[in-house]
């Protein structure tokens, strides 16, 4: 018996059923190193154990010089910086400068302990137990305990709070489900089994920073009280904020002496400011309008694969899309590699008409990618009795590349005799009241909608596609699909998850209520002398390890 075997046996005794399953999967070769790290962290395997399994050290030395001032251009927050209501990338990046989450969802979608040191679920995934880090102090001086976690998370799950995170917690967690066990243990009793629950209390859910119990979210702006590596220096609404190291921080001392997050109204002024040397970094760039930064030696491009995408819905209850052959035909007209090249300079993954983006490890990659096939599309149209063509209206919003995408779809569909009239309006007009009957987004015959990155596909699988979904603009109603999604969400078993995702992908390719053409990469930009900045596809910017020069 080798040392390694002994060590592993001991580790197995300490692990619970689900953790052991992950270990089995890795040893059997069903998941790769990346998959082990990702799933291992989701089920609360310790970093030391996974490091042992991989035979590598997970500790990384921090490079870079201390003492810089790091200046970041961010998008002007749309409202007050209130941790409960923030819903925009300008606001959320401010929250995570001084606030911390139970778990960090790293850029490669792996979960890393932060204020929680470990987490694990009961057998069916309905109760999750989180162990909290000890000796963590808020900037205001109070020691963090389970009470603070219960207060912070229960508030986000409360429908009476105007919480932005409600859409994530609805049907998963009620405020009463957050239970203190002791000062350093919290249990989450879920409304339904959920194998991916840790993502909902990770940085993926950007509102979920831990705040002192009893604190007023409306007054957050005055203190930015949190447990993070930085504390607030100055905040000026509409202008910017600056931060300095928090001397009482529990983790390693942050490198920068000061960080300045300056608000910009639009991308163009951010690009100019980076080029003019007024800032060291841009929080996020879109390829449209920032072409000058791509392949520019004066700029360091941060390029991360993401699940950000556009959904092209076709109303399954409205002619001519009542016939699935017509929906399939439209999807078959698209030359996806060319579209991605044209719209994103290739910085994007292809979509296969399901929410399973290639970046998700649970995506079943054995399902073949849909490719352009005009001949088949024409014969499908003929089979549907539309050989003579048809006319539809595509409604969408004036946002980034979407109008260009709409024109590409219009041109492609013309090849099979489908005439698409475009109606392009402001985002406000497109979303309208965001309820059925009062929204072009939810009522239009055909439309294109923007969806931001999520660490797991759960929201994309349910809200826009299940029969009772609140964002079901395709009006897709399929009991078989609903059942598959329920079993995907509930499953805590990796191989089952991937098995189900294969079935979901196949079903959606056949039904094609929504075209998922691409999942484009998250891009940020820094000056060439900037190192150690960590960015994720949520648009969060972690500056503790950053240095300039």
């Amino acid at each position, binding site marked *: 018996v080798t040392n390694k075997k002994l060590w592993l046996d001991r580790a197995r005794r300490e692990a619970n059923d689900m953790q052991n399953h992950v270990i089995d999967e890795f040893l059997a070769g069903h998941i790769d190193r990346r998959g082990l790290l990702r799933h291992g962290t989701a089920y609360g395997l310790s970093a030391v154990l996974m490091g042992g399994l991989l035979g590598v050290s997970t500790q990384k030395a921090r490079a870079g010089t201390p003492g810089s001032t790091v200046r970041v251009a961010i998008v002007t927050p*749309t409202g007050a910086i209130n941790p409960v209501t923030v*819903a925009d990338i300008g606001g959320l990046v401010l929250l995570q400068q001084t606030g911390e989450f139970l778990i960090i969802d790293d850029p490669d979608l792996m979960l890393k302990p932060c204020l929680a040191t470990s987490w694990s679920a009961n057998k069916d995934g309905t109760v999750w137990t989180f162990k909290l880090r000890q000796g963590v102090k808020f900037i205001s001086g109070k020691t963090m305990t389970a009470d603070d976690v219960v207060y912070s998370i229960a508030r986000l799950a409360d429908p*009476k709070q*105007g919480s932005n995170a*409600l859409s994530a917690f609805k049907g998963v967690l009620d405020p009463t489900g957050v239970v203190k066990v002791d000062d350093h243990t919290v249990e989450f009793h879920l409304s339904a089994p959920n194998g991916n629950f840790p993502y909902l209390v990770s940085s993926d859910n950007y509102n979920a920073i831990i705040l002192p119990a009893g604190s007023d979210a409306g007054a957050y702006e005055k203190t930015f009280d949190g447990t993070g590596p930085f504390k607030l220096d100055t905040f000026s609404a509409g202008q910017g904020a600056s931060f300095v190291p928090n001397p009482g921080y529990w983790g390693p001392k942050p490198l920068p002496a000061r960080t300045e997050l300056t608000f910009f109204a639009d991308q163009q002024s951010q690009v100019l400011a980076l080029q003019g040397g*007024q800032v060291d970094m841009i929080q996020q760039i879109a390829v449209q309008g920032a072409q000058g930064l791509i392949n520019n030696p004066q700029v360091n491009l941060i390029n991360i694969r993401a699940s950000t995408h556009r959904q092209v819905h076709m109303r399954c209850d409205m002619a001519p899309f009542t016939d699935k052959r017509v929906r399939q035909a439209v999807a078959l007209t698209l030359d996806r590699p060319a579209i991605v090249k044209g719209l994103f300079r290739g910085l994007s993954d292809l979509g296969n008409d399901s929410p399973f983006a290639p970046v998700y490890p649970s995506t079943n990659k054995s399902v073949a990618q849909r490719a352009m096939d005009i001949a088949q599309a024409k014969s499908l149209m003929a089979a549907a009795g539309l050989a003579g063509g048809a006319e539809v209206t595509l409604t969408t919003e004036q946002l980034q590349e979407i109008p260009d995408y709409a024109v590409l779809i219009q041109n492609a569909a013309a090849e099979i005799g489908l005439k698409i009239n475009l109606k392009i309006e402001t985002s406000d007009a497109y979303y*309208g009241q965001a309820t059925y009957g009062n929204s072009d*987004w939810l009522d239009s015959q055909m439309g294109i909608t923007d969806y931001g990155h999520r660490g797991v596909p759960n929201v994309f699988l349910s809200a826009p596609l299940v029969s009772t979904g609140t964002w079901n603009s395709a009006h897709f109603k399929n009991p078989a699909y609903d059942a598959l999604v329920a079993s995907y969400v509930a499953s805590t078993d990796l191989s089952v998850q991937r098995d189900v995702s294969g079935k979901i992908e196949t079903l959606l390719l056949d039904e094609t209520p929504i075209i998922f053409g691409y999942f484009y990469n998250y891009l940020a930009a820094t000056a060439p002398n900037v190192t150690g900045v960590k960015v994720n596809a949520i648009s969060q910017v972690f500056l503790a390890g950053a240095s300039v020069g």
Partner: protein
Amino acid sequence: MLKQLGNMLAKRLGLSLVTLLLLSLLVFAGGQLLPGNVGRAILGPLADAASVAALNHKLGTDLPVPVMYWRWISHFVTGDMGMSYAFQQPVAPFILRALGNSLKLAGVAFVIVVPLSIGGGVYAAMHARSWIDKVISISGLSMTVIPEFVSSIALILILGIWLSWLPVSATAPPGSGALEQIYHLILPSLPLVFELFGYIARMARAGTVEALDSDYTRTAVLKGLPWRVVIFRHVLRNALLPTITVVATQLGYLVGGLVVVESLFRYQGIGSLILTAARDKDFPMLEAGILTVGAIYVLVTVAADLLYTVLNPRLRAGGR
């Protein structure tokens, strides 16, 4: 004379108040036509309906429309601009800071463009049909028709990035002195100079050409007055009257209409404040911003009329 002016001023200011009241109603009514609401604007289109309703209730933005208007106007007339829906902070400091910034930028642009364009126009008129006249007229006209967002980017690229002569951001670092602030405002004011130079110079040129052609100028020359006296006392006083009106009305644009320049140069002026407020459906901020700009327009128009009256010998009872 003074009584006449006083009457005119009182009448004009009274009418202005009515104009501003109508403006506030119009902005309010227009805001209601736009889709969405404050809670939705803050939480985004994908937020849960229950959250949006709860937030609107907290903010007081779920009240009937006339009640919201009455609440706002009854406070506004007492000088209380109210709380911003989006920022959850009092509106007044935002407006004051933005107005201060806008006035600084307008001031710098004004100081550059007025002497330059009037001098250029008069010079062109005095050398009418020469090559220099053509250069001034044609280049002025060309610069005027270039949109601000084009000239701004060209100027930023050339002066800010390639040559690195001037800072790209209009906002000076906190705690900077007046000179540092002016230095930061030079580049952003250049697109405005471009925009206005051609217009003002053409007005000045046309007026001067006309005045040079007039009988009183011929008389002045023939009675042997020195050329300087002819130009300054007889020609310019008459020639620049229309120009003064034009310059004054442009002041309103310079303070309130610079959304593009303010956003490109990241400058917190009143134009971008209004744009943001409209986008967020932040009604108290929007009303206060628009009324501020409206008041400036009204005031500069009255001031221009007043100046015109004072300077125009034909409208002046006791003039020389």
